[in-house]
């Protein structure tokens, strides 16, 4: 598995809060830096509670890596980049 895989990421947030904005911008930054090809969907559970039910989302923000398998779940505003990379099975390119 490498950064060359196609990544399908879903980010669940609750409304347009500072925390949601934080998570989106953090994720955007990490993806731009680390991933060659990715697709990102942001889902607001206030608008789509059914989707949150299906995915059993409890905390927000929650990031789900749908592709490549296996499924991965990261919760929080993604401010801890190292943990995010760990969760996405990525080693930081620059250290």
């Amino acid at each position: 598995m490498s950064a060359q895989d196609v990544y399908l990421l879903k980010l669940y947030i609750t409304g347009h809060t500072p925390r949601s904005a934080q998570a989106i911008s953090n994720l955007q930054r990490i993806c731009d830096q680390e991933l060659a090809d990715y697709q990102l969907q942001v889902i607001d559970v206030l608008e789509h509670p059914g989707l949150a039910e299906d995915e059993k989302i409890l905390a927000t923000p929650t990031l789900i890596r749908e592709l490549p398998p296996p499924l991965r779940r990261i919760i929080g505003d993604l401010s801890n980049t190292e943990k995010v990379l760990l969760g996405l099975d990525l080693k930081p390119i620059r250290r």
Partner: protein
Amino acid sequence: MEVNHPVSPLVKLSTGIEGFDLIAEGGLPKGRTTLVAGTAGSAKTVFAAQFLAEGIRRHQQAGVFVTFEEPPTDIRRNLLSMSWDILQWETDGLWTFVDVSPIPGMEQIEAGNFDLGALLARIEHAIRKVGAKRVAIDSLGAVFSQFTNSSMVREEMRRLGAALRNMGITAVLTAERTQEFGEIARFGVEEFVADNVVILRNVLEEEKRRRTVEILKFRGTTHQKGEYPFTVLPDSGIVVIPVSAIELKQRSSDLRVSSGNAELNRMTGGGFFQDSLILVSGATGCGKTLMTAEFIAASITHGERCLLFAYEESREQLFRNASGWGYDFKRFEEEGLLKVICAYPETAGLEDHLIRIKSHIDGFKPRRVAVDSVSALERVATNRGFREFIISLASFVKQREIPGLFTATTANLMGGPSITESHFSSITDTIILLRYVEMLGEMRRGITVLKMRGSMHEKEIREFTIDGQGMHINAPFRNIIGILSGRPEFITPAEMERMGHLFSD
């Protein structure tokens, strides 16, 4: 200055859990959240689920079940045995799960701050979807165990509580306790949902499990205080036995019914009262079961149904004994006038016995009830549990306004009271003592009416014999004293005369 606050009194929402509404004086505070705390195995989940189930069954009120522990499939299966068809209710839009149970094998990494906004959104969505009035959340401890930051969880639960209140939802929130007595729940949860607290206990006492429910507090409204025993029945869930909440509103009747023995009718001043409780106490083998059989037969000869609970003998034994006195119990049963329930006390807990007795009485609707013997049930209960059982059983029978005859076996062969007697004597209307009397190296039997509420009765101790025609009550024992104390003594006619004169004027 006069301040005019339009404060509406707190309304209660009937839970539908049998007996609970009685001790809660109507139900749970409506539009509020009640914390139901208990140790492992104290039936918290059943309470929470039953709160929803009865809402659907009795009031057509939809409910939302938020599960943090067991997945919905497990809950559906576990509760199907209670004849609660949750899947059907889900189809009918009366029950919705919010499944927050842990996902097996799912590892979750925490990378920064988060809250439980999604949980709140899902619960609100579920409530709107089915138009729920009731919400059950099971359990709080499991929410805390999923996250490392417990102050965040506490804050989010407070937010959830406020949201439920705004929507006018009546909710039950379960929480774990580590011990039966002590702090209400772990994680200091009572601070934010402490308006109403119910505690379920499952205490081991004298090697017997005893379940009790206690309403610790209802803010701004009343409830019965103290612990009340309850049981969990496999087919109907929690049933609370509201011992002291039972109202003494039985009417009193002047109608008399036959005891089944003409001489005993005379001794009691015309038979038992229609709505009275009769306690027959005596040592083993001295004629209690016979008296029960005569009581039953009297009912049946009038074409009235009678229900007998036998805890000492097997069916075969009992029927054989009855036929020995000339009563054909088998035929009585075939005619539909008699129903005999034989059970060994050890087959169930006392609460379960009580529930069964009640449901048999309500099912068969007898005109008379007999229990032979009540004291056999002492074996499966603690002293306190037995006292509650007796009171509860007695008031139940009284409310049906039918005569109930209970027998109690005394521990000593000659004289002596039993625990049953001491618990029973104040609530029974009639007490009949059967005693062995040793006379000239021979065991004879004596009978006396010790108490007959609301009526004159004979005070003498009479001798009785038993043969193939039943019980024959004869003349009083004249020259003998100390029968009831178990130390009979002969006295000479001269002595009797002297004693008679002592009280003459």
